[in-house]
C-alpha cells in the first residue's frame, strides 16, 4: 500500500514536471564552467534558470510587457536597505543573475558607482543578451569570486554605502560566503552609515546557523520576511540600527520613486523585526566550520 502511494506521488511529480517544462520554452542555453544557464519564456515572463530539472528554479525573471516591474518579492525586498541609507554613492552587488538589482540602482542613483561581482562569465553573457543588462563608466561587472574581491577591496581600503549579498542559488550555497570571517570582511567595506542587505533563506536548519552568524558579525539586524516566500532579507549596518519608527519617513520619501518597480516600500517598515525568532544556541559558521550545504 505504502509502495503504491509512493509510486503514484512519484508519477504525479513526473507528470507535473513534464507539464511545466512543456509550457516553458527554452529560448537560449549558455554553456558555463559551473552549470548550464538557461533562458526560458513563459506567460509573458523571461527567466534565467540554472537547473531545469527541479521545476521552478528561476534565478531572475523579467516581465516582457513591463520590464520595469520587478517580478520577485525578494528582489523588491532587497531595496528595503534604502530605508536606512536612502542615498548611497558607492554600491556593491555580489551575484548578478539577470542584473535586475544593479539596473534599478543605476536608474535610482545615476551618479552612484556600482560594482557587481559575478563568478560565472556565462551569467554575465546571458544577462547582457537577454535581460537588458548594461555596464557603463561607473558601473562595472567583475567576473570574480565575491570572497576574493571583497577581501582585496578591504585591503585596498575601499568603502561602500550599500552592499547587496545575493550570491546564493537555491540548491547550492557558496559556503565561504556564509562565514563569520566573510561577514567581518564585508563589514570592513561598509562606510560609517553603510548598509548590507543579504538575500538568504527562511527555511531549513540553516536559518538558525545563519542568523547567529550575522548576529556575531553585526550585532542586532533587521530580519525581513513575507508570508508565502521562502526567502528572507537580512539588513545590517556597521553602526547601530535606527529604531523602526524612524523608518516611516524615509519610506514616504522613497515611495514615489520605487513605485514604477512595483515596490511598495510603505509596507516595509512594519515588516522589519529585530526580535530573534531562531535558535540562538546554534553554532556560528566560520571558515573552519561551514557545513551550510549539509544543513540545507
Amino acid at each position, binding site marked *: 500500500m505504502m509502495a503504491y502511494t509512493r509510486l503514484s506521488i512519484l508519477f504525479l511529480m513526473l507528470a507535473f514536471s513534464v507539464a511545466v517544462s512543456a509550457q516553458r520554452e527554452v529560448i537560449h542555453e549558455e554553456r558555463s564552467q559551473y552549470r548550464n544557464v538557461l533562458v526560458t519564456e513563459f506567460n509573458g515572463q523571461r527567466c534565467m534558470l540554472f537547473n531545469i530539472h527541479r521545476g521552478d528554479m528561476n534565478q531572475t525573471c523579467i516581465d516582457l510587457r513591463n520590464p520595469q516591474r520587478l517580478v520577485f518579492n525578494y528582489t523588491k525586498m532587497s531595496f528595503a536597505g534604502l530605508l536606512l541609507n536612502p542615498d548611497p554613492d558607492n554600491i556593491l552587488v555580489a551575484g548578478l543573475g539577470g542584473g535586475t538589482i544593479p539596473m534599478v540602482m543605476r536608474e535610482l542613483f545615476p551618479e552612484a558607482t556600482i560594482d557587481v561581482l559575478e563568478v560565472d562569465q556565462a551569467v554575465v553573457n546571458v544577462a547582457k543578451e537577454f535581460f537588458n543588462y548594461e555596464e557603463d563608466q561607473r558601473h562595472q561587472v567583475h567576473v570574480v569570486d*565575491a*570572497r*576574493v574581491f571583497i577581501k582585496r577591496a578591504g585591503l585596498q581600503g575601499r568603502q561602500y554605502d550599500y552592499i547587496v549579498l545575493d550570491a546564493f542559488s537555491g540548491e547550492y550555497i557558496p559556503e565561504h560566503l556564509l562565514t563569520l*570571517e566573510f561577514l567581518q570582511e564585508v563589514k570592513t567595506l561598509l562606510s560609517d552609515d553603510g548598509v548590507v542587505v543579504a538575500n538568504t533563506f527562511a527555511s531549513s536548519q540553516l536559518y538558525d546557523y545563519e542568523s547567529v552568524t550575522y548576529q556575531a558579525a553585526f550585532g542586532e539586524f533587521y530580519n525581513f520576511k513575507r508570508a508565502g516566500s521562502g526567502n528572507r532579507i537580512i539588513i545590517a549596518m556597521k553602526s547601530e540600527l535606527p529604531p523602526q519608527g524612524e523608518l516611516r519617513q524615509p519610506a514616504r520619501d522613497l515611495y514615489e520613486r520605487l513605485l514604477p518597480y512595483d515596490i511598495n516600500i510603505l509596507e516595509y517598515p512594519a515588516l522589519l523585526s529585530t526580535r530573534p525568532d531562531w535558535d540562538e544556541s546554534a553554532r556560528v559558521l566560520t571558515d573552519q566550520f561551514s557545513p551550510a550545504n549539509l544543513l540545507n
Partner: protein
Amino acid sequence: MAQADLSISTTAASRLAVLCVAFINGFVIMSIELLGGRVLAPYFGSSVHVWGSIIAVFMLSLSLGYLWGGRLSLTNPGPNTFIAFFLLAALLCLPIIFFADPVMTQIFLNVEDPRYGSLITAMLLYFAPICVMGMVSPYSVRLLVLSQSESGGVAGMLYFVSTLGSALGTLGTSFYFVMWFEINQVMWGCVAALLACALMIALTLGKQQSGVRT
C-alpha cells in the same frame, strides 16, 4: 635469494597491517584533498579553477610519490623506511594546520590572479605531505610480494584497498566530518591516523624482522 621468498612481511598479522595502513593512507589523502578546497576558499574562492589547482597538485604529488617510493623499494627494502614515510607525512601535515593562513595571506597579497594564487598555495601546502603518502603504495607492494608470479595479484589487492580507503575518506569527510568538526580538528585526526599507521607497522613488521634476523 630464493624466488619464493621475496617478501619482507611474512606473517599474517604483518601482511594485514600493510593492507590496513594502505587503506588508512588512501582515506587520509582524500580527506585532506577535500578539506583543501575549504582551506583555500576564503582566499581564492571556490571556483572551478581552485578545485583544478588542488586536484592537479594532488595528482602531481602522488605521481612523483609513486615514482620515488618505487625507487626506494629497490634498495634495501625494510619496515624502517616504511615507518619513516608515515612519521614524515604526519610531520609535513602540521604546516597545513599552523601556517596555512600566513602562507595564503602572503600569496594573496602578491598574486592577483586567484588561479595561480591557488595553484602556488596548493603546491606549498600539499606537495610534500601528499608526495610522501604517495610513496606508501609502491612500497607496500614491495613489502607484500612473495614471488614474481604473485606480484600482479598483490598490486591489485593494494590498489583495491587504498582506493577503497580514498572513496570512504571522500564520503566521510564531505558528508559528515565537516559537519561534526572544524577543518583543523579533522586535520589532527589525519595526523593521528598517520602516526597510528607508523605504530602499527612498528609493532608487526618491526618485531618480525628482528625475529627473522636471529
